[in-house]
């Protein structure tokens, strides 16, 4: 089935129908682990250049999946297809399916804001909204209709604690978020994402702009959170993937070369290309 932004798919089908259609990819089953996101025959092109080539992958539920590969291999593009942010680029053509909980998110009847609410996003550089620390966390909740001050207060506190930021900011909740250090800003962005109660956390090299201590705190947070959330992160740091990932997807030039449980892929890569990347011959 093919689709693009301008020509939404003719037929979407319902969730249960899709759920039965999903089969583990050839020879690379997820060992009985539930799948949360499934990508099927995804092709993305921009003008004449094809950014993703026939990508199919299953992302396991409540695990940390790391997408690794050299710069420009399509990691971030793949990540952005998960919450349809890819659509905001002008002239992008999307073909294929991305199923979240069995439902094709590129389907005709999908309400994009509801779908995005399911996923928190951490970008490379922390992007606090131009408002106070408190309002940053409350922003998503207010958009989704929570107005009551007491509920907002309670949840802002809760999610700031979840992101281990509460003690550092509790006395200055109404100061601009940009006054925080960059590491604190990234934890704020995490708290802000968690506050809309997503199922999935997407990270686009979320530690690349941070100092080692701040990076470590984000990594620790991810490990803590994976019991409740499915985490997908793009990283170019192989050691990071080794430290925290349960599952690894290796991409090269817009294609998935290999994917599998982290230790298997890192210790015994099947493909020559993966071997070279893991050894550091290519990077």
């Amino acid at each position: 089935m093919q689709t693009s932004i301008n020509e939404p798919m003719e037929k979407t089908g319902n969730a249960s129908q899709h759920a039965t259609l999903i089969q583990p990819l050839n020879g690379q089953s997820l060992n009985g682990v539930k799948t949360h996101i499934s990508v099927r025959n995804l092709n993305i092109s921009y003008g004449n250049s094809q950014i993703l080539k026939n990508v199919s992958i299953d992302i396991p539920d409540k695990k940390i999946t790391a997408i690794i590969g050299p710069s420009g291999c399509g990691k971030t593009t793949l990540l952005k297809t998960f919450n349809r942010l890819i659509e905001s680029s002008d002239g992008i053509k999307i073909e294929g399916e991305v199923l979240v909980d069995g439902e094709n998110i590129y389907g005709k009847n999908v309400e994009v804001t509801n779908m995005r609410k399911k996923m928190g996003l951490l970008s490379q550089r922390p992007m606090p909204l131009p408002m106070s620390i408190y309002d940053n966390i409350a922003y998503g909740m207010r958009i989704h209709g929570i107005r009551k001050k007491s509920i907002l207060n309670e949840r802002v506190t809760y999610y700031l604690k979840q992101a281990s930021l509460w003690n550092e900011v509790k006395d200055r909740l109404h100061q601009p978020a940009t006054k925080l250090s960059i590491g604190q800003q990234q934890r704020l962005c995490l708290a802000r994402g968690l506050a809309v109660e997503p199922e999935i956390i997407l990270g686009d090299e979320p530690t690349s702009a941070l100092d080692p201590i701040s990076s470590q705190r984000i990594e620790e947070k991810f490990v803590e959170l994976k019991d409740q959330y499915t985490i997908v992160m793009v990283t170019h740091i192989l050691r990071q993937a080794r430290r925290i990932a349960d599952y690894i997807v290796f991409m090269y030039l817009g294609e998935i070369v290999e994917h599998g449980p982290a230790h298997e892929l890192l210790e015994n890569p099947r493909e020559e290309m993966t071997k070279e990347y893991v050894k550091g011959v290519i990077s």
Partner: protein
Amino acid sequence: MVLPLRILLDKVAGKSVLCLSVLIGSLLFLIVGGLYFKSLPILESHSFWDLISKSIWKPGKEQFGFLPYILSTVYITIISLTIAVPLCILCSVYLSEYASKRVKSFVTSLVDILAGIPSVIFGIWGIIMIVPFISDTLAPAFGQEDTTGYSILAGGLVLAIMVFPIVIHIMLEVLRTVPVELREASLSLGANKWETIKKVVLRKAAPGIIAAIVLGFSRAFGETLAVLMVVGNTALIPHSIFDAGYPLPALIANNYGEMMSIPLYDSALMFASFLLLVVILIFNVAARFFMMRVERRMS
């Protein structure tokens, strides 16, 4: 010891660019000082407060009340701001956030061409289109039958149209500096496009948007020709937007060089120029101060 030529040249170059910069920097003071000096005669025979608060203008009897001119200038500016600011913001939001690349570059180039049109053409266009539209359609609709159409509303409209291109151009630049990732952060929380624009993009761009408005209107404030052609030039305080007015720049342009035999007339016009300049300076400084406060609140 003889300095090698290239070292000497380096020193000369450094000093001469410094001199030129100082010269350009001091221009403002020279102009303000010159105008003030030339308006001294009228300030000696009339009090400053009388000049700006009285509304009778009879130069032959040495009565110089600038109030009608000042109010006309202020009213025209307010009218054009009221029309132009929302339109400029909405237009630049459309172009930067909604329009496809092709539409954007097409409309942007149209807007830029508009910026290059000489003001006399806007004035003529105002006379043949806006003035009759006001006298035949708009004013009667508001129950004002006896207007010629030459009014402060016409002046404000022409002015608004003249500031569109420059303000839109700067606003587009400002909106482009808002990082894509910031929009994505808001979208990823489930906000829709309009919520993102209203609560995040415009908020982030607020200082720049204010700067764009100030820049546009500093130029518009003193815009003479086009406004003078449609505003009616009557030295009375306008009581409705359909009344004629007489802004300060028009007063200066219409009369300088004429009626110079009347004592103090020359000085009165210099005072008008001085006043205009001071108002624009205050406007600029106030806007800058406001902008700094907004910036501090944001970051």
